[in-house]
């Protein structure tokens, strides 16, 4: 052992730089609660609930165009109307209009997004803020819910499906899109539960120790702040993806977070609940490596290995990664060969940088600092630095033609 800390500790240190703080998390909940209150006072009957990473506990500091940017937090506004009785444009503006008229919200409101209204809360603490995406929606109609059930989705997960609005043209045309954030969260929670149970007690104590101004007791620490190794692995992967695709000049081909979250959860299903983040990352990248062999025609095709691997499919030119609570929803819609190639290259780099470095915790820390773009991390944890990296004096490579 060449250092006073383990690779797992290095990873946790990296995450502490990327995760949302309990204060900001509480602040965001307070903010959307107030919005719900305001809208209800203006006659909007709706349920508000977090979706995506905000709901799953996988919020990660995003990195775009070479910079850390504000957290993205999604909140569904499920309007209590019958889908058959309203138009998507009506639902979208039912939420948007009162916000535009509000003295409190109008100046935080960004220009209309295709699917949501975004309120910008810059600088919530001295370092950063968040964008609150309000997603107008209604309960899904019964025909489509029945279709999900017929396709094998358990009824409890199918019935919570919703229809969200989508602006299809600048002229103000809107359509419906199928979505099921609640069903997805139920699916994710089931897989995550054993991993979470394993660490819950210990983490509650820790979060309480560091945030005594927020909570009166250990029990008051909200469960959403607990991070299982699965959630942590997802956070690491999302951040690594952001940084990798920026450096590869291919931000437009990033795999969406739903792909990372879904595959990580699928691969983690049934693993020993006491697994560490580092081990889990290794497992995930090895799985992706097998898929890469299977789908990119490299390596030997051992059928016993491949016949059970059907989470990523490829049929002629179409790629398919299914939404686990809506098989008609293809997360890899729009992928081409280049997108797939980049995706598997990325997973190889994750393994190289965050798994293969695990034998030396100092190297792991350096690798985390670099690959997740966390300034100063390589000096954290009091490393007894033997040597610092040389600062490059850039010379552009050339080639003579003689």
């Amino acid at each position, binding site marked *: 052992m060449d250092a006073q800390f383990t690779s797992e500790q290095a990873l946790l240190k990296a995450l502490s730089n990327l995760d949302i703080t309990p204060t900001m998390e509480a602040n965001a909940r307070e903010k959307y609660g107030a919005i719900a209150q305001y809208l209800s006072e203006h006659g909007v009957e709706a349920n508000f609930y977090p979706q995506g990473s905000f709901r799953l506990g996988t919020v990660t500091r995003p990195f775009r165009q070479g910079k850390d940017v504000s957290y993205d937090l999604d909140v569904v506004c499920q309007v209590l109307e019958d889908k058959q009785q309203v138009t998507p444009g009506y639902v979208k503006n039912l939420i948007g209009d009162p916000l535009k008229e509000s003295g409190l919200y109008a100046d935080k409101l960004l220009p209309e997004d295709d699917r949501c209204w975004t309120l910008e809360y810059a600088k919530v603490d001295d370092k950063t803020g968040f964008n609150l995406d309000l997603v107008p929606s209604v309960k899904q109609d019964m025909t489509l819910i029945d279709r999900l059930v017929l396709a094998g989705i358990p009824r409890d997960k199918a019935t919570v499906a919703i229809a969200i609005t989508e602006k299809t043209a600048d002229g103000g045309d809107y359509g419906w899109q199928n979505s099921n954030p609640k069903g997805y969260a139920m699916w994710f929670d089931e897989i995550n539960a054993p991993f979470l149970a394993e660490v819950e007690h210990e983490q509650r104590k820790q979060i309480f120790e560091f945030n005594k101004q927020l909570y009166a007791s250990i029990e008051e620490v909200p469960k959403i702040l607990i991070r299982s190794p699965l959630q942590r692995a997802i956070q690491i992967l999302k951040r690594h993806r952001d940084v990798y695709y920026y*450096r*590869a000049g291919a931000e437009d081909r990033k795999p969406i977070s739903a792909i990372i979250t879904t595959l990580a959860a699928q691969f983690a299903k049934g693993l020993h609940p006491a697994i560490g983040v580092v081990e889990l990352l290794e497992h995930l990248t090895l799985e992706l490596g097998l898929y890469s062999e299977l789908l990119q025609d490299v390596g030997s095709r051992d059928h016993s290995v491949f016949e059970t691997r059907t989470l990523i499919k490829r049929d002629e030119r179409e790629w398919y990664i299914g939404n686990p609570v809506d098989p008609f929803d293809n997360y890899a819609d729009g992928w081409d060969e280049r997108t797939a190639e980049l995706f598997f290259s990325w997973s190889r780099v994750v393994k190289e940088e965050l798994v293969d470095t695990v034998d030396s915790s100092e190297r792991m820390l350096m690798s985390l600092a670099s690959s997740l773009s966390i300034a100063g991390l390589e000096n954290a944890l009091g490393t007894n630095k033997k040597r610092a*990296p040389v600062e490059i004096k850039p*010379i552009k*490579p050339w080639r*003579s033609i*003689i």
Partner: protein
Amino acid sequence: MEVDHITDTLAKEIYDLVNKHPGLSTRLTASGYEISGVFEFYATHNGIIIQDEYQILMQIPLDYPKNLPYVFERGKKIPEGFDHVSYDGTLCLGVPMEIRQSLLEEPSLSGFVERYLISYLYSASHFRKYGTYPYGDRAHGVDGIYEYYYDLFGTKDRSVVHQLLLLVYEDNYRGHHLCPCGSKLRLRKCHGPSLMRVVLNTDLKSQAMVDLAIMAKNMEEKYERYRKKNPTSTQRF
């Protein structure tokens, strides 16, 4: 004797270099020193830290830094698509004039290795990982040479580069003459300073003349191609 003196200094620099990089060893050959082995580096640029190693072979002429070393990579680790290895297998670390200009600040062999070799291998490792160049690359051949002079002289005009280099050739630098770039300023207030650096250093000057010859040869080739396509239009000069 001067040659002995140079060689002795070089021998010491080689000793220092091999000492600093335990994977490398050296021997003397008829054409100069040869350094080979595993070259490790640990370097950072814009927050991207890369630790990597390459099997290299360096041939260092006895009159270094008058003549620059040749570097080869022997481990087949330069990534596919990283198109900066010449046909004879030498690594094209950079446009020679750019290397020479920068070597003025740090002329030792360690300087050469720390600056150009690491910069190049870092680019290669970055390319293997991300498929992109961390600080760009230069076009091949004469176009890359022009690119460097464009940067050096702050112009995008080939004829300005030609005229400035011709001033070096003619040994006719006069500060009070008008600058050939068309700025209507005196040379000393315009391109003079960047030109003086070249004029005053014999190695830079001879490199400038080599580059000018490459540019001239390139124009001549263009003329030949034109003549082949249009056989009746012009006469051979």
